[in-house]
Structures are given as C-alpha cells and as structure tokens.
C-alpha cells in the first residue's frame, strides 16, 4: 500500500539551514548535509530544501549544495527557491534533485508550469502555494520569503490549485501561512477544501506541533504527506516515534 509521507523541510539561507517563525527572524540551526543525513537516518520519507534567499535575491537555488546532497542522500528530495525558467530547473534536476518546486515564479508566469512539465514530466514538478484567509476567502500570497515584499495576489487559492494541476503540476505543497510556525495544528479546513479538488498528491505544510496534529491531517484532510520543520529541528517530535504513533493509529506508514 502507498504510504503517507513524513517530510522535514529545511529552509536554506546562504548555504546553512535556518528557521524562522511566520517567515521572519531566521536563526541558523545547522549544516545542510548534517541535517539531511540525520533526518534520513531517523526515517524521513523525503526532504524538501527551500532556498529562502534565492527568490528575493532574484537567483535560483545553488546547484552546488544540491549536488552534495544528491551524492550522499538515498531518499528523495525536492528543491525550492528562485527557479524561474526551464534552464534553472534543469540545473537543479541534473545536480540530482528528484523534484523542483516553484511558487512565486508560477504566479508571475503560469506558462512555466506547462514548460517544466513538458521538459521533465509532471512527476518532477511541484507547485508550492502560500495561502491564508483574506476577508473570508483563501488567497494566494507571493514573495513570502521576503517579509518586505510579501503580499496577497488577486488569486483564489482554490482556483489556483485547479489551474496549476491543469497546467501540469504533479504535486502541490499547500503552506497555510497563518498556521505556520505556531504549532497549533495544520489548517484542516483549508486542506480539506483543496483536497476535494486536487487530483494530484497534496502535501500539508504549516502548523505541526504534536503527533496528534499529523494524525489529524492524514485522517481528516486525507493529504499524501505532511511537511514540518521546527518540531523536527528542535527534536520535540522524533520522526521514528511519530511514525510508530501513526502506524498504531492505522495510517499506512513506511516503518
């Protein structure tokens, strides 16, 4: 049976892993490769590396560390940050990433999704969506890596999900912004709404604080994977214990 995925997310800035709360106040928490190997050893099903300085600085993620990770890591990983062309994506994929994830550039240039799917196949193309409620409806946000430029765009999250899938997104990571970093649980309501109209794998992001939150998001929002950062970085939820808990509660999980 296909298992649900536990996905630590590593925010990368200037070659180090950092963590902020609600995208702000980042502190360095370790070296990319050290953390990647640690999570692999703990049983992570996949890793996401998000180069948070790439997009605001107008450059793609650095292929050099991607290559280092690809040489050492034997589980899949996805790279996000500043990928705005087929050429950018090719550099990251050929450096060894299994998937690339685009967010702001997909909003500015939706055709990029089609072009990437055409060039590499939909299974390589992840679209990240930063979303939160604005005046009663879920709205897509842009430039979320940079607090000074972050703003909502006139785009309903539910419409955008359908559009990106139609254009060739093979997977969606929905980051529920107002839930991110505060550890009160995933945004079940929003994830359920997106799940209902999303035919490709959906990854929940933002809000994990306890093992129960993971169980809730799998059983109530039927997501394919759950992404989290701080609970793993700070060791408050060891991945191995999380997986045992989920398995005991009937969620299909790779031991």
């Amino acid at each position, binding site marked *: 049976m296909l298992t649900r995925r536990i996905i630590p997310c590593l925010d990368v800035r200037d070659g180090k892993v950092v963590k902020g709360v609600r995208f702000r106040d980042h502190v360095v928490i370790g070296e990319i490769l050290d953390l990647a190997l640690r999570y692999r050893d703990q049983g992570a099903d996949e890793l996401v590396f998000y180069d948070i300085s790439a997009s605001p600085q107008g450059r793609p993620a650095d292929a050099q560390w991607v290559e280092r990770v690809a040489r050492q890591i034997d589980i899949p990983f996805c790279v996000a940050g500043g990928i705005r062309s087929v050429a950018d994506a090719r550099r990251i*994929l050929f450096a060894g990433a299994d998937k690339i994830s685009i967010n702001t550039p997909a909003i500015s240039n939706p055709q990029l999704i089609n072009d990437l799917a055409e060039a*590499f196949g939909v299974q390589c193309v992840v679209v990240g969506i930063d979303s939160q409620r604005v005046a009663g409806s879920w709205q897509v946000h842009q430039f979320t890596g940079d607090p000074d430029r972050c703003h909502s765009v006139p785009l309903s999250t539910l419409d955008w999900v359908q559009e990106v899938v139609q254009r060739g997104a*093979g997977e969606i990571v929905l980051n529920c912004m107002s839930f991110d970093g505060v550890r009160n649980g995933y945004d079940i309501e929003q994830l359920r709404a997106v799940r209902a109209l999303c035919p490709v794998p959906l990854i929940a992001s933002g809000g994990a604080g306890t093992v129960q939150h993971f169980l809730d998001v799998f059983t109530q929002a039927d997501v394919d994977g759950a992404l989290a950062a701080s609970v793993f970085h700070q060791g408050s939820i060891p991945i191995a214990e999380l997986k045992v808990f989920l398995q005991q509660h009937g969620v299909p999980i790779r031991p």
Partner: protein
Amino acid sequence: MNARRSPLDVVLIDGGGSNIASVQAAFARRGVNAELSRDHERIGRASHVVLPGVGAAAPAMQRLRALGLDRLIPTLTQPLLGVCLGMQLLFTSSEESNTACLGLIPGRVQRLLEADCGRVPHIGWNQLQALTDAPLLAGLEAAAYAYFVHSYVAPVGPATVATCDYGGAFSAVVSWRNFHGVQFHPERSAAVGARILANFLELA
C-alpha cells in the same frame, strides 16, 4: 561485441535523463565508479549496463535513436538494468505519445488512471510483492518499501518478478534474459534500493 569484460565495469547509458547523476552517486556510495557513456564500443565492453531515465518516453526514445543506441541495446548480452522510464523503454511500446520502445519485453506501457488510483502521479513509498525468487530480489524482506514517482506503468507479464499495487498490480521489477528493470528509484529507496543495486552487480 562484449569481447572483453573486466570483473566489474558499470556503464550508465547517457541518454539524457535527469536522474543520471543520482544513479551514478548511488553506485559511488557502493564504491563503484559508474562511467557515463554513449559510445557503443564502451557500452559493449561493460560488465553491467544501466539505462536510467526520467521524463517522457517519446523524447527519450528519440535520443536513443539519434545515438543509434536503440539498435545497440538489444544486442547487449551483459546484465542491463533499466530504471524508472529506463525500465519502461525495455517494453514493446508506450501509450505515452504512442511511442515504439526497444521491444525487448512484450507489453505496452499504460497510463495510470485517476479512476483506478485516485491520484496520479503515483508518488511515494510503496510495497514490492515478489512473484519469484529472482536474484535481483535476494535478501529483501517481504513487502519491502521502495520509492516510486511515475504516471505510466508496465503491465504484469511473464517478465515480472515483483509487482506493486496502485489501483491494480503493475510491474515493479522485471527480468527477461539479461534485461532487468525497476519501476521505482533504487537510488532513492534507502536500504532496499541499495540492496537491489548490489544484487544487480552480482548478476553475471
């Protein structure tokens, strides 16, 4: 062809797939230097040949044809391992853009249907069900987990040695004469993948 083979000499066919570096790294982690080549003579004298592949069937076959590799590969007699799309290319044809493939294993690769599976692509860790005691599966636990990322599948047939279930059974591991293939990514399947690559290198 294949006149002189050194004891272990792995060549990755350079057909342009984007997972080549990762497959190469997986061999490097085993201390095996797998050379990338599109040279017929070089490929011919390798002890083991790997056909990686990520992307779409039609452009992948076009590249192989442009390099004459579509004619070379069927003549190879050493163990060959197709990975992901590389495995699908071993079959007769693919529904993906109605592509004629290498024709080494009978069968037509088909698209996964949302109606059967719920969600396509099939992405994640899923279980292998061994059908036989194939050497490629030696030492694996029952229902071992491997990492899959794909939208097309090869049907179960006489070459199938392990299946995977996603809205129905499909070929997860195939062996047909010296031609082998895995639909999942051994280079990204942790200990299970490492074991399968080690088993492949044991094949003679």
